[in-house]
């Protein structure tokens, strides 16, 4: 039985270490973007920064996992998110994605959970922040790691 969230509830967070290897690999996922400021130090210097930084989409991936973990299908089918990347993320950072329920609204006659969510690094510094919304948590289906045996391909 899925939980029913209420205003003030904190989401179950997810934490990941950002490694240089994964930053490089991330730039090759789905479409290879070639060398850029997320994967190559020389490209980063050409862009005006002295070391590579993780792409914003890398943080978005962690926020997706946060929402999949806490909302299941309610996020996957109908979730919305608005995020701004506010501080650089470097290789070696440990990012925690988490969120807070700010209100329970209504959309199309059904409850809609409104959230603040963010990623923060090991120093407690927010690296991205924004809002999201989804229906109340529903079936987790295959979107949660512990059920990965049933994951859709």
């Amino acid at each position, binding site marked *: 039985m899925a939980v029913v969230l209420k205003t003030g509830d904190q989401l179950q967070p997810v934490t*990941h270490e950002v490694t240089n290897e*994964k930053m490089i*690999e*991330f730039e*090759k*996922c*789905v*479409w290879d*973007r070639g060398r850029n*400021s997320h994967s190559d130090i020389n490209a*980063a210097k*050409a*862009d*005006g*920064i*002295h*070391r590579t*930084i993780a*792409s*914003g*989409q*890398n943080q*978005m*991936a*962690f926020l*997706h*996992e946060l929402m*999949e973990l806490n909302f299941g299908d309610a*996020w*996957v*089918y*109908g*979730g*919305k*998110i*608005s*995020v*701004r*990347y506010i*501080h*650089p993320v470097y290789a070696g950072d440990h990012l925690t994605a988490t969120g807070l329920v700010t209100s329970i609204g209504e959309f199309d006659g059904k409850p809609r959970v409104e959230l603040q969510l963010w990623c923060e690094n090991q120093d407690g510094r927010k690296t991205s922040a*924004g809002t999201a919304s989804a229906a109340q948590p529903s079936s987790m289906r*295959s*979107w*949660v*790691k512990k*059920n*990965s045996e049933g*994951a*859709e*391909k």
Partner: protein
Amino acid sequence: MAESTGENKVWESIPVGDDLGSLDYVLTEQMVADYRRVVDNPCAAYPTVAARHPANLFYRKYAAVMRVPNMGHDCEYYNPPVVGKRITIRGRIADKYIRRGNPYIIVEAVAVDEDGRLLEKSRLVGHAREVGKEAAHETIAKKWGA
């Protein structure tokens, strides 16, 4: 709402509503597996996060003159992509504005699969940087010493 400053000629020349066209690709099992491994989430529903639909459509047309470092995203998700299905994305310039003296471009992409299922709508908030005028991440470097 766009404001004209006269200092950002390339940015000013890109009209709101500009059609960025479409492109398509087949989401392969390898793409999904690679994404899930790299983000350490074996069940990730939307490997398209790494596909950067808006940016790819934008750069196909404007790479020679403009960079749009990613300052944020606004996204809506409807149906997760299915392995083996062809995904078609179509883009446009949704908005542009000046904020705190910096020009921004909002690039929108809508993804639909071969069965007509709406997958996602994503908007890239890009900090518009004219190629050759200033390094793409100059502002980040100044602000945070990156």
